[in-house]
């Protein structure tokens, strides 16, 4: 299955891209996908990064074909 992964803030800086299409195999939860995406990146506090699946922050969701994934570092609005 294919998903679009969007990167923001320090995650986009670490990946050096703002988004990419990823080919995934097998059943995967959001938290597992987050770990897979962050592996190898130089991010000090990986636990502070949240994953959104179709704009939903529940990381127990199972990823489906066509999902829009976003990796979100700590919020800093205001």
């Amino acid at each position, binding site marked *: 299955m294919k998903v679009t992964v*969007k990167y*923001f*803030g*320090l995650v*986009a800086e670490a990946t050096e891209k703002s988004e990419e299409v990823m080919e995934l195999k097998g059943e995967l939860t959001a938290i597992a996908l987050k770990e897979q995406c962050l592996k190898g990146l130089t991010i000090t506090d990986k636990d*502070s990064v949240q994953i*959104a699946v179709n*704009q939903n922050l529940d990381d127990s969701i199972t990823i489906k074909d066509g999902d829009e994934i*976003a990796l*979100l*570092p*700590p*919020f*800093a*609005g*205001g």
Partner: protein
Amino acid sequence: MDRKKPKKVFVQGAIPPEKIANSVANHQSKTNIGAHSIFLGQIRADEVDGKTVIAIDYTAYEEMAEKVFHEIREAAFAKFDITCAHIYHSLGKVNVGELCLFVFTSSAHRKIAIEATNFFVEEIKAKVPVFGKEIFEDETHQWKVNK
């Protein structure tokens, strides 16, 4: 006020101070209002390890942010007896001393407006996917984290 309609929150660059005056002026015809409460977020020249912040460059997951702003509005209207509410947040570069957040609520009475504004600000800081790159005078940067 049409409170159900999603409103455009993001503005490019700093929020001009004139926008605050204009917003107040736009509400003078609404005579059921007895109190406005305004919060203005301004970029602070923080010092970190001897370097001074000169600007914050804001980015956002815009589609999700607009959705969350709308949910916060709905929650605020359910919780507080406010007449109207407006939120504006900057995207892109905002220099120190300039405004990056403008929350404006109106109600018949002051306490409700003040509490509603506080609710908006806290919810926005906690829940909206906005990211801030703090730029120092030597062009290095660090990523802002809300406390």
